[in-house]
């Protein structure tokens, strides 16, 4: 323990002085005479003493994980533990529960008999399959649609139009609204008898359509509402990307003979790859959280027929039907889907040295 104490003291000394050793990562430099006043490190003060076990262990850790690994631990250990316990610990606990048969009013899950029964039950449950398919459709269609609308808005706004800032604010505003509020908006808009959606298509002699009642349409109605809310966000991300492209690229493409459409398609949009990827990841994560929207739309755990997604199914199974273990299993599937979205993104960013 005294060794550890000395290491900490040395670390503090190190950061307090402008010692040249800071950051060079060379453990062999420990015996160096200090430049700031001739203080010599411990090994030279006790000639002949073998380095202790702790010391060697620390040196080993430092060598493998980078210098200052131990010294810096007091800074990163507390958040590391908090995150580990409350996020990843909870995930693991949830996974354990999903392996039990915990349901109804049992006092506690029984961990003595773990199996994958809940997962096989899910695969046999047509409600689960429907919810999974709906979740997938929602993720893909919502993300693709929002990106497309956001891109078009961003390009239009980037053409140097008047009142650019006002437009930007107007399009971004829906995102600042809570799902609860926007769900109420769209409930009114989609109202069968006097909602504005049916009024508008009525002008063209169409409808009325039961937007939220028809199970072939309701999912797309929800996707459209979510697109309305988030295309402003995609626009802002794309706008930042467009601003980073120098004017000369537009001009060079024009002089090269490209029409405006070709210029965007071949020169500008390919350069927005980074913006597309980061916006897509955020949008997919929002798409998975569409639970709030559906919950607010109907004021309960049972979304309109045809719009059930994994998130609503999970909560309904757990809290309405008290199938705790089954709900936990659905949660793990949802978690795996989220990892499937974020994992490749993290790898991509890591490869580009952005992490």
């Amino acid at each position, binding site marked *: 323990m005294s060794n550890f104490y000395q290491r900490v003291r040395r670390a503090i000394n190190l950061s307090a002085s402008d010692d040249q050793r800071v950051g060079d990562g060379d453990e062999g430099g420990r015996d160096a005479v200090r430049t700031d006043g001739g203080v010599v490190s411990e090994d030279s003060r006790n000639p002949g003493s073998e380095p202790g076990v702790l010391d060697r262990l620390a040196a080993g850790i430092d060598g493998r994980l980078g210098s200052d690994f131990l010294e810096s631990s007091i800074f990163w250990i507390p958040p590391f533990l908090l995150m580990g316990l409350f996020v990843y610990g909870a995930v693991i606990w949830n996974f354990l529960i999903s392996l039990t048969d915990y349901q109804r009013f049992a006092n506690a899950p029984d961990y003595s008999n773990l199996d994958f029964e809940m997962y096989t039950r899910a695969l046999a449950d047509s409600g689960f399959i429907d919810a999974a398919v709906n979740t997938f459709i929602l993720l893909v269609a919502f993300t693709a649609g929002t990106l497309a609308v956001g891109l078009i808005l961003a390009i239009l706004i980037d053409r140097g139009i008047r009142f650019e800032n006002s437009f930007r604010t107007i399009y971004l505003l829906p995102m600042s609204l809570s799902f609860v509020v926007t769900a109420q908006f769209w409930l009114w808009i989609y109202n069968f008898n006097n909602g504005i959606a049916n009024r508008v298509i009525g002008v063209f002699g169409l409808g009325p359509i039961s937007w939220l009642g028809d199970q072939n349409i309701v999912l797309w109605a929800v996707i459209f509402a979510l697109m309305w809310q988030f295309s402003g966000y995609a626009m802002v991300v794309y706008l930042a990307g467009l601003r980073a492209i120098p004017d000369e690229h537009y*001009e060079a493409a024009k002089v090269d003979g490209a029409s405006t459409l070709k210029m965007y398609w*071949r020169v500008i949009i390919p350069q927005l790859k980074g913006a597309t990827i980061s916006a897509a990841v955020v949008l997919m994560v929002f798409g998975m959280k569409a639970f709030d929207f559906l919950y607010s739309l109907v004021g309960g755990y049972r979304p309109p027929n045809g719009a059930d997604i994994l998130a609503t199914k999970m909560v309904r199974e757990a809290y309405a039907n008290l199938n705790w273990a089954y709900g936990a299993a659905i949660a793990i599937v949802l978690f795996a889907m989220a990892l499937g979205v974020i994992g490749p993104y993290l790898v991509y960013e890591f490869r580009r040295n952005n992490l």
Partner: protein
Amino acid sequence: MATLELDSITKTFQDGDDEIVAVDDISMSIDDGEFLVVVGPSGCGKSTTLRMIAGLETITSGTISLGDRVINDVPSQERDIAMVFQSYALYPHMTVRQNMSFGLEESTDLPDDEISRMVSETADLLDIPSLLDRKPSDLSGGQQQRVALGRAIVRDPEVFLMDEPLSNLDAKLRAQMRTELQRLQDDLGVTTVYVTHDQTEAMTMGDRIAILDGGELQQIATPLECYHEPANQFVASFLGEPSMNFFDVTLEGDRLVGDAFEYPVGAEIRDDVGDVTDLVLGIRPESVELVEAAGGDHDFEMTVDVVEPMGDENTLYLQFDPDADSEGAATLVATTDGLTPVSSGEAVVARIPEEAIHLFDRNTGEALHNRSMEEAAQQIDLS
């Protein structure tokens, strides 16, 4: 290939209620195959002029024609011009090959194999075939420069427009590319408009140079004409490094009287000047001679204030009055042979030869008397 004709081109920008004139009534004609360098200080309108030719800026008034076709309202896409940008503007997501074929794909109906043949021919010409499959971000500045040139050359346009294409290169590479660009333009024989702020590029590269200041064309002539027979004081000061010495003088009888000196002039020069009395005397530093002893009215005893040795030559800052503080006093800059030993504080005799002086109207800046080109050429022969 065609003649590019600019006729009274004017460009104004609206800034609130103010109207800013960027280009003011410029007319010039660039012959087929000619290399015209447009030069001037920043903000003089040279880039705006180039961008109007490219179709990237609208023209407020005047006409631009290419051959017999007025191209004022022709969009850039259909002008058959190629432009090299200062930043190169290579498309970062495309390989060099794709960058170079992009223009051909967009502006012509040529089949793919024909395009790829033209791209590799151009790459050979520029000595960059090994770079064809790399991305612009993997290239050095000089290589990017070549690719940008290649992208313009492969199009085989009627006019090349170049906007300070060498200014992002280091000095050595710039000198090398300068020569190479000239050779390429000679070989290709494409009408070229080249914008730069660098007077070395202007002097060495162009068949003619057009000097702009404040949106107005000051002079358009061959480099040597502009150097030896500047149309006005701006042109005289803009070309040459170190730049020409100027002294405010008034003509009194047969003498030019300045603050620090008097300078007698002959009848021929007085005829050129006419009845203007407020003048500016100009003398190029390399025309000032150091002599052993004062032997005439054009010799002045001076003190060396500062010596800047450049190796091949020394730049001397001479003062008429040794006691004056060096800030405000009239200083004559002279360049002398780098091997002549001169040191600060030394007294020397400087001769300002009468045949080398320029006289400008102090109010209009217009040149009233220039040294003649023949005399200048003779002097070069003698030395």
